[in-house]
């Protein structure tokens, strides 16, 4: 990504300049295995001699505490939540992702603006409003969309950390039980994600397969992206 490209106006008050690094995004549903893949990718890329920085939602120094506290209460409205997440994302983009890209790092982002946008839209936000908020979002070099069925997600989460309130969309699907809410909410998200995949040109990866198979797929796509930056191992040995 030599020159920064944005979905809208970007950060007009700031000179961004060239970005020699690469921004790689992993998108996909809750429990689809994104964080496992990011760990594997990070180790692999570092082995190959690349400097890697990773980031994910709700890790901004500005909003982390406040947003978590707000989500524990019961007064957090939908528009408010959308904007809180946007603040978190903007802070990490300006203060973490862009500086890392300027320094030539490969940035692995666990989710990106698309996930927030999708959750906003599912919660009834005006789709145009939700998209335009992210006019400051940098266009990634590669968006890998880990696509799975709701049944795959259920299986992973039940055997993992369990189902939770927000991931089950309890705020908008107050079904009789958490399970039904989860199925309804995640199904809607997957449908929307499939649309966003087309709109924003995601590379869709079948995530309903064993971890190492998915990983190999991801590696192949990332290798293509990095072909102009061959791993140092090839040259030494």
């Amino acid at each position, binding site marked *: 990504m030599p020159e920064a490209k944005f979905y809208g106006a970007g950060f007009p008050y700031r000179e961004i300049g060239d970005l020699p690094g690469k921004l790689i995004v992993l998108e996909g549903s809750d429990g689809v295995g994104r964080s496992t893949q990011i760990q594997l990718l990070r180790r692999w890329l570092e082995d190959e001699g690349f400097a890697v920085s990773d980031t994910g939602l709700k890790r901004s120094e500005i909003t982390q505490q*406040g947003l978590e506290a707000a989500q524990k209460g019961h007064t957090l*409205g939908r528009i408010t939540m959308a904007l809180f997440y946007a603040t978190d994302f903007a802070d990490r983009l300006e203060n973490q992702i862009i500086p890392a890209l300027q320094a030539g790092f490969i940035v692995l982002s666990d989710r990106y603006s698309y996930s927030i946008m999708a959750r906003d839209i599912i919660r009834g936000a005006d789709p145009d409003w939700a998209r335009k908020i992210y006019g400051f979002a940098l266009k990634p070099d590669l968006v890998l969309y880990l696509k799975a069925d709701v049944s795959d997600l259920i299986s992973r989460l039940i055997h993992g950390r369990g189902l939770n309130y927000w991931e089950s969309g309890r705020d908008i699907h107050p079904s009789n039980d958490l399970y039904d809410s989860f199925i309804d909410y995640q199904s809607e998200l997957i449908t929307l994600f499939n649309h966003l995949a087309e709109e924003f040109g995601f590379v869709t990866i079948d995530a309903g397969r064993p971890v190492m198979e998915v990983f190999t797929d991801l590696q192949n796509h990332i290798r293509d992206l990095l072909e102009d930056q061959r791993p140092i191992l090839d040259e030494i040995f």
Partner: protein
Amino acid sequence: MLRKNTTPGKLIIVEGIDGSGKSTQIDLLYKWLHTQGRSVYFSEWNSSGLVKSTTKRAKKRKLFTPTTFSLLQCTDFADRWENRIFPMLKAGVIVLADRYAFTAFGRDVARGVDREWVRNLYSFAIQPDIALYFRVPLDVSVQRITGARATLKYYEAGMDLSLSESRIESFKLFQERILNEYDNMVNEFNLTVIDGNLTVQAQQRLVRGIVKQELDGWKGLPMPEVRPHSPFPVKIDTKKGKA
């Protein structure tokens, strides 16, 4: 860009640069309406309980960029909007707001964010029934602010923009930019300009006149009962049949 008010409530807001006298005026307006037995709710810029601690922390540590500043202030506004302002309007209350989306359109653009982008952020909000813009010359505002307070705060003075090493100088340059944005918004958002150089009472007379006209023939949410401890007798307007 703002939605039309289709609620039974009335939205009245005041705007102006720091030191323009708008808070004094809206306070007097609030008391006047309250005394008349109107259901009134007052909301102040940057006052959401949900967002306050986050803003405070970020200001203290100087973590804001123009974009995150803009987004967090809109988050604060959204919380007030969703939990207070909008439900109140739907109930037929007169909502008075000290600063509104136009403050963001002025300040955030003065900080360098994109004009259209910040207008989109607030597009869930309603175009006020009355938007009063208290216009004062820059030097009056500067004099009022620096005379009344010991120091100007970092973001208040626009120090994050690196316009000047001096807080007062930075404040002036920052306010000047905001003033330009406000002036351009007069037509865009149909702001009613009030001359902030007039006496407080003369301004309040104008304000009440405008509000009275807007409320003429309008019935809002009635007060459940006449308050027994009202400092003034509640005047019943028999012609219109409302308290």
